[in-house]
């Protein structure tokens, strides 16, 4: 079961490190960061899924991790400038994909268990 929760453990470790870190950023960036967090989370879930599917590619993962985060943050920023909440696009896309990835992960794990049983 450990192999399923390594991402969760990583996030928990990250939260602990983040709380211990003395640095904080300006509160006005919080919207961009929160959308970026969603994109990163989606990338991590996608990575777990691809790992379970045995086709994990580090280049795709890293480029997705940072690219998606940057794009989501940029969309939020652009939306702010245009007066249109463009970050909705990021929220819906990455939020939807997050659940999609989670669904696939569940299926993979459950079916694998069935096979082993």
């Amino acid at each position, binding site marked *: 079961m450990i192999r399923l929760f390594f991402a969760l453990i990583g996030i928990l470790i990250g939260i*602990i490190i*983040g709380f211990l870190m003395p640095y904080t950023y300006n509160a006005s960036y919080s919207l961009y960061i929160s959308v970026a967090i969603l994109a990163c989370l989606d990338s991590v879930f996608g990575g777990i899924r691809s790992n379970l599917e045995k086709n994990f590619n580090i280049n795709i993962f890293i480029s997705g991790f940072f690219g998606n985060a940057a794009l989501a943050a940029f969309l939020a920023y652009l939306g702010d400038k245009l007066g249109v909440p463009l970050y909705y696009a990021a929220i819906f896309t990455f939020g939807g994909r997050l659940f999609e990835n989670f669904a696939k992960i569940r299926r993979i794990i459950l079916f694998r268990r069935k096979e082993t049983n």
Partner: protein
Amino acid sequence: MGDIMRRHNPKIILTIFSIIVGIFIANQIKLKLETFTPVTIKSLQATKAEITSVNNEISELNKILKAKEEELALLENIAMGDDNILDILKNDISYNKLYSGQTSLKGPGIVIKMYDNPEERSYGFDLNDDLIHDVDILNILNDLKIAGAEAISVNGERVLSTSEIKCAGPTIRINGRSTATPFVIKAIGDPKLLYASVNAPGTYGDILKIYSIGFETTVEDMLYIPGYKGVFNYRFAKPLGEDD
């Protein structure tokens, strides 16, 4: 591609990146943000309206501030210029007291001394004909006013527009105080006119003499008339333009 996968354990990489995500999440939590609500056009407009209303309020307050500052500057100027305001107010008070009859006055005028029939023999059949009545005083005062008397007193009581002359048996009451004969009426004004108004043939004073009532008039170069000593207390009358 195969060796990259082998060289980098995906689990380790995923854990590392999960840590990065966790750090960001922790930072976000540390900011302790208020519940974040997306900015809708409606809320934008509401905020805009609020800001404009507040700005209007500020500009109105600034206008008031400006007016008050001007007022203050005026008062400060008065204060700087050797106690101008005090002099102005003092002048105001003395002026108002003078014309409301609260100031003692001096000037030329006449003194009328009135008393009941001093002779033992009665003038007529009616005893009342020998006595001075409130009406007699009132008529004399009216004659003096017609002749342009500027200040009148009866037995030391200043006669104002509100002063009553009330019959109280053998005495009369004026300004709420009883006085008895002899009645000394002082009037400041043109002495000749005042003298004529009560002594010329056919005047009320002349008729009183016929009734053998004591009536002596003397012209004085310098008279002293005291001010009104009572307190004005209007219960019903109010200045126009305050409550309406």
